[in-house]
């Protein structure tokens, strides 16, 4: 037992060390700034709640928080809405193992490309004179170009695309571990395949759905590059707020915004973690 404990510690040391040096320490050092003040363009290292109070007194802060949550909710809902049927089809309809591997690779291929490159790709595609608008206009479907860029739509489309594999993978992996004799039993008891899906498959795959939600929601909440490049300044979310404040050397305000972001993420993790425990208690 003791040896096992020591071995575990030994195995965990590199990871724990890395976390401490690269994550916990800098994060703490940065967040501590939230307890300092920012006056006349300078950080004043006194212990005060002044910055926090100012952040929460500013209506703009609430707009930013709301924008972040809204973006995360929309993107999560969309990735689940697209990802679940995809995972389901991948599991039930793509029977040949070879075809499954290829589909999986296609699905994950966006992750191979750097976020920045991919986002600039979207710029070309979604611009007023980009591929989508040109095609729609030539087809006579629209007169004026749709505003697909530099607003929420562009950010949502892009984030949904990027995060899709993160939704598909956990759902697919749960589906592929499901006991399919349960579906057979339900069929035997008179259920048609829609009823089997609603009463058996969907409830049984909820752990995958919750895990997918957790990943997509927290990644959307902390997404920076996409809102920055595709939001055109109109999508003011918390990570942008943190970034802008920090660039302006207003570390205290950035730190407060970062703390709020962290709390929101932790709240999401906690809520969905509880949900996961609830749905997998069965």
């Amino acid at each position: 037992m003791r040896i096992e404990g020591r071995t575990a510690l030994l195995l965990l040391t590199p990871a724990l060390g890395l976390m401490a040096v690269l994550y916990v320490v800098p994060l703490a050092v940065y967040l501590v700034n939230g307890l300092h003040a920012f006056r006349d363009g300078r950080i004043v290292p006194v212990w005060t709640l002044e910055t926090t109070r100012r952040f929460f007194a500013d209506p703009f802060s609430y707009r930013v928080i709301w924008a972040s949550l809204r973006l995360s909710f929309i993107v999560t809902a969309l990735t689940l809405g697209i990802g679940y049927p995809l995972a389901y089809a991948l599991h039930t309809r793509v029977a040949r193992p070879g075809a499954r591997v290829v589909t999986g690779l296609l699905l994950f291929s966006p992750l191979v490309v750097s976020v920045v490159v991919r986002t600039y790709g979207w710029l070309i595609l979604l611009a007023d004179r980009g591929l989508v608008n040109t095609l729609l206009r030539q087809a006579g479907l629209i007169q004026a170009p749709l505003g697909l860029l530099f607003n929420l739509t562009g950010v949502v489309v892009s984030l949904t695309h990027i995060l899709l594999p993160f939704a598909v993978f956990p759902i697919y992996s749960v589906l592929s571990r499901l006991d399919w004799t349960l579906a057979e039993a339900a069929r035997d008891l008179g259920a048609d395949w829609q009823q089997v899906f609603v009463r058996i498959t969907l409830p049984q795959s909820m752990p995958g759905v919750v895990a997918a939600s957790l990943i997509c929601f927290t990644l959307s909440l902390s997404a920076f590059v996409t809102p920055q490049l595709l939001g055109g300044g109109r999508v003011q979310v918390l990570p942008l707020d943190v970034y802008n404040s920090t660039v302006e050397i207003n570390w205290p305000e950035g730190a407060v915004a970062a703390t709020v972001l962290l709390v929101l993420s932790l709240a999401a993790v906690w809520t969905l973690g509880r949900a996961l425990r609830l749905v997998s208690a069965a």
Partner: protein
Amino acid sequence: MALSGGAPVEVRHLLKRFGTTAAVDDVTFTVGGGEFFSLLGPSGCGKTTTLRVIGGFERADAGHVLIDGRPMGQLPPNRRETYMVFQRLALFPHYHVFDNVAFGLRMKRLPEVEVRRRAREALALVRLEGMETRRISELSGGQQQRVALARALVNRPRVLLLDEPLSALDLKLRLQMQEELKRLQRELGTTFIYVTHDQGEAMAMSDRVGVMDAGRLLQVGTPLDIYERPQTPFVAHFIGDANLIQGTVDALEPRTIAVRAGALRIHAHRDGWERLGAPISVCIRPERVWVAAAGDSAGGLRGRIEDRAFVGQAVKYRIDVDGLPLRASVPYRSGTPLFAVGETVAVGWDAGQAVPVPADGGGFEHADVADRRDLRPAGPASA
């Protein structure tokens, strides 16, 4: 529960392959309405596969299944009158016990009052009252098996397919549930197709038994028939204990045959299909073998006791008869003389109790024949 009247089931020349191996190989049998029919055989012989084809879970490569005279074709399980108790139970882990049992009734959109009444009844039937709100994971293996039974029975099936439904129970509960199931089956008049690899269970419960091996149905008959008249060495071995002596037919007499097996010449019952000079096996049940002190016996063979085991109601001997290993099971009452290991004894049997069995590969063309007198080939009949 109301009588539902079991439907007859007919399986014709069923063939099911997985890859290149035939899991079910040209299987044909008929089950009467309300009959308790068992499929018996060793692990991997194709019992589950046969049942799954009947239930509509597996598509046959050839052959037909008829229920109540109607060909099932590709009808999905939810459109068949069969209900299945699965080998791996397949209970719904996200529902509690009651909702598992009520599932089939809710699919039929019965009024909730009726659903409750019937589900309670079914739970009482399998002695699980008070467990309604338990989760499946909170039940013992035996309790889970009883939920699986209740979940199928509650639908008053006309044909119930049971895949080793009692295998997770301890001996006492298993015997109790065997009686219970048998009683239920008789009262409900349901057709039962019952899969098991436990020959005792099959013998005790069934009206008729089908013995399978390696995808083939070797023999169908009443338990008594199969025990008394095994048609292949496999069946003889699989059902009960058997001494199987191989030899060639040496003489045909009006009621008996003589078989030469090595240095021995033994006598067995004559069925009529035996041919002079042909290879044959003779099946002698250990309890039909008598053992006596070497001196005071008029007839019999000489043998040496190799091993002795006292099992309560009987004494089991392993005897060497001129190189032929023979097992005997002698009923024990207090005072019955016991023979010691190494002792020379006289052994024998009534020729009428020694059953001729076609040697593997020879003999009968079809297994699915209850009365083998029909199959008597025209052999050289001797007076």
